[in-house]
């Protein structure tokens, strides 16, 4: 059986500079993958390629056995590819519940607005936003916004969830809570693909790790294997990055 997600030879250039330069990897169902690497390594570009916001200059992407290279972003979402953004971007004119409902109605294919509302409420409760479901998003704290982002993505019923630096801006206590929540989501059958800088999260949540630098993969394996790889160490020491 083919992997849940496969990327083959992805290339993406911006005005002559290759942000992603020959990226290939695969994600097996139930085996969460973390992508790490110094800033500018091309991780977010890779996410944009996978979720369909950018078209690759070369390469292929298959999701659930189907070639989705030319398939548009909203179709991929309907197929089960969910995504959060590093800088949380809620729909400001809808309240918390309304935001989650967007995901439920379109990505998640809810049969009715009422059904979507019920599902959205359930997800808000699950992430801990239940009491604030009718709040305008302007009043939310940073961790609350992350919860909203998560609930909204979960509403699209993803088989694979792309998480872009979910831990950024959270205190250690909030991080622990988030990891707990993500474990529950994994247990519900969602495979995770994360971009992360917080190494403890990477260790806790991922089964395999892919290290990128200059748009290419430079190492792949378990967290233990990768953290000992001399290429990886060199890449991190070469930049001022790496919060472990």
């Amino acid at each position, binding site marked *: 059986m083919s992997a849940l997600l496969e990327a083959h030879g992805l290339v993406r250039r911006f005005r002559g500079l290759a942000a992603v330069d020959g990226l290939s990897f695969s994600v097996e169902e139930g085996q969460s993958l973390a992508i790490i690497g110094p800033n500018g390594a091309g991780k977010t570009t890779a996410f944009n390629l996978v979720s369909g916001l950018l078209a690759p200059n070369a390469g292929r992407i298959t999701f659930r056995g189907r070639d989705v290279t030319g398939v548009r972003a909203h179709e991929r979402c309907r197929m089960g590819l969910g995504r959060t953004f590093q800088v949380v971007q809620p729909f400001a*004119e809808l309240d918390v519940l309304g935001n989650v409902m*967007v*995901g439920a109605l379109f990505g998640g294919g809810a049969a009715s607005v009422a059904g979507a509302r019920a599902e959205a409420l359930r997800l808000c409760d699950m992430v801990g936003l239940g009491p604030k479901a009718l709040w305008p998003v302007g009043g939310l704290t940073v961790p609350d916004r992350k919860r909203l982002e998560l609930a909204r993505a979960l509403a699209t019923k993803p088989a694979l969830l792309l998480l872009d630096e979910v831990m950024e801006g959270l205190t250690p206590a909030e991080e622990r809570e988030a990891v707990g929540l993500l474990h529950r989501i994994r247990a519900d059958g969602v495979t995770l693909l994360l971009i992360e800088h917080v190494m403890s999260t990477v260790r806790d949540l991922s089964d395999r790790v892919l290290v990128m630098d200059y748009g290419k993969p430079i190492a792949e394996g378990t967290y233990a294997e990768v953290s000992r790889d001399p290429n990886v160490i060199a890449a991190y020491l070469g930049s001022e990055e790496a919060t472990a």
Partner: protein
Amino acid sequence: MRRELVAWLAFIAIAALLPLALASDPYLMLLANVMLMFMALALSWDVVARTGQLSLAHGAFFGLGAYTVAIGHKYAALPPLAGLAVAGVVGAIVAVALGGVTLRLRGIYFAIATLAFGEVLRTVALQVPDVTGGTIGISMPPLFGGDRVASYYLAGAIFLLALALSLGVRYTRAHYAVTAIRTNEAVAAVMGVPVVLTKVLTFVTAAVIATLAGAFYMPFITHTDPHDAFEVSRSVAALAFPIFGGIYTSVGPVIGTVVLRSLEEYLRVTPPWKEGYQVVYGAVIVLAVLFMPRGLVGLASRMRARLSRRPEARIPILGSGR
């Protein structure tokens, strides 16, 4: 939702009975007809704006409708109602062509293309005088023999279509789609919203309504020419009325039409405004965008929130369907 629907039913009931009071005054009956026509135009512009798109072509579709009916009558002896139906189809086809290409791209391309579209239609109308009558224009016999009450109900039907569209986009899942799209298309797409399809559908339905309004206008006014049919002022009115009354609502475009169109009647005959009355529209648009972005409706809800002193009510939230 229920409250709004009830309010609209009451409005419709009053409007339906209005001719009883006005039928004796031909000027007021004329104005009532025109009001309904512009309300439909304004409502249809507002729907497109809900996806974050600026349509400067509403006046052009209006003119397209007018000319389609006139030409249909001239060459195929089409009676006005049949002409109306044909015009609707023509408007849909043109809108699909225009929107299909430009709505895939950034909003500015769509706006520019709609602006250019109007100019092109006017030029074409001028340059094929054999068909369109050129600068002299084109005529047809009056709608319903000049019966302004009968035409009022026809205009009312078109208005109801527009209202149905406007309320439909508000109270179905379309509301969530368009709000997401206008906030952030990329995030909307990633949440599963079919962005391009939604934008095209809203544009096409709105354009059809604008075309129908123009198709009504032609036999109502009996004569038009390219400068009248494709007046930029109609595209301006189509957006000034909703912005002033309250964008993204159904009541806003209606209120805006009543207030501004009545004002226009006064200005058109009063010096120094006269033909320059549009300066008021320009000023209204600029001031509204800067200081009153949600129009009169927004103003009213902000005042209500201040009076009730609930902090979360201050932001005009379209919410989760309350």
